[in-house]
């Protein structure tokens, strides 16, 4: 199983029946493949849709039905479309149950940096700052390291996305929860040892006596 699929399957367990969820473009988008339709989870996209469905079959695209990356999507039965103010009102107003986003760095305070590498990659924050400030739960879905370099660090060196503490970090190696007392290692990926996780993390981790293997529903 690929590192991405491990992350996506584990994130899927974090999403609850009947909730409204925003999945970021890229790795988080693939989480929807691992959600049972009968859970009735609605996906929101910040360009203005509540109830976004998967990509349509070729030849059945609608130029007015797209996701936040401009890619073609469908609308599930019962979906609603709204303008940008309404869409962000849902996000900031506490109506969005969870947001799943990628990360460049997360630190011991649970702060996330995920939108800019000054001088090198300046795409703009888009909706990321609103999502991280406003969603009820913030789920960071990312690879544990970047080219072998830890992404979970003592303190973010990149500009923060928000001052708010994220809810949970899911990587291809571990599930880590930021708390008042710092980062707590909650789970390890199948076949990964606690020692390997500690070695791939430059932030201080609290290690409980029991660190169970994560359930990836495979």
């Amino acid at each position, binding site marked *: 199983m690929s590192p991405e699929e491990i992350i996506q399957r584990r994130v899927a367990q974090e999403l609850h029946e009947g909730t409204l969820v925003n999945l970021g473009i890229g790795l988080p988008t693939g989480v929807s493949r691992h959600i049972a339709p009968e859970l009735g989870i609605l996906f929101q*996209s910040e360009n203005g849709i509540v109830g976004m469905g998967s990509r349509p079959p070729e030849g059945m695209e609608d130029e007015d039905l797209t996701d936040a990356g401009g890619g073609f999507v469908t609308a599930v039965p019962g979906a609603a479309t709204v303008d940008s*103010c309404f869409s962000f009102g849902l996000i900031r107003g506490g109506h969005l149950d969870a947001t799943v986003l990628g990360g460049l760095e997360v630190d011991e305070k649970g702060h996330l940096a995920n939108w800019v590498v000054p001088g090198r990659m300046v795409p*703009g924050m888009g*909706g990321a*700052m609103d999502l991280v400030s406003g969603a009820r739960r913030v789920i960071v879905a990312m690879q544990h390291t970047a080219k072998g370099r830890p992404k979970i660090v003592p303190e973010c060196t990149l500009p923060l996305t928000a001052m708010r503490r994220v809810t949970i970090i899911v990587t291809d190696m571990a599930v880590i929860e930021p708390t008042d007392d710092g980062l707590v290692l909650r789970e390890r990926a199948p076949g990964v040892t606690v020692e390997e996780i500690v070695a791939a993390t430059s932030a201080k981790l609290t290690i409980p006596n029991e660190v169970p293997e994560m359930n990836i529903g495979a």
Partner: protein
Amino acid sequence: MKKAITPQEAAELIPDGAVLMIGGFMGVGSPHRIIDALVEAGRKNFTVIANDTAKPGCGIGKLITAGAISRLIASHIGLNPETQKAMIAGAIDVLLTPQGTLAEQIRAGGFGLGGVLTKTGVGTIAAKGMRTLDIDGEEWLLAPPLKADFALIHSDRADYNGNLCYQLTSTNFNPMMATAGAVVIAESREISPVGLIPPDHVTTPGVLVNYIIRRGQP
């Protein structure tokens, strides 16, 4: 009745150096025929307020390629490498703003409000140069209202009174922008005789709209 003009006549109305709001999200719901006419007319030095600059060869991306924009207020430029290059080279002055804040700033400009108070961006570099207000012990950022000389709008359906209807995710920033331009020019996919659009299907009342773009050649 509103005057129906050609895209070329619209471009004649818009001088070099104008402040433009342009609807659309990654080119979805942008007034493509007006944009093409502005490029063809060789206009320069625009200030553009828009969510993003789409991609090269698409929507607002064409104005970037043509060097028609000298100042940009947007939330995301990550999918247009030409915008990023021009920004780093100093050819375009770019102000990146969180997407939900940008949408509300436009609404505030059009609805006569003095600004927007938001928590999005508090403590981040997006707050640079912005006033913060302490309200009952909580910190808020004050974002100023935005207005434009011209708002260039895409709609799905219009009538000759200028009433506009939007469709699915091509709605995005268009309804807010239609309130915030001194002159509002609407390009619609379909134009109906006055009286055919049911009043409760109208999102933007025609009183806000100055010009309708004529139908294209079939």
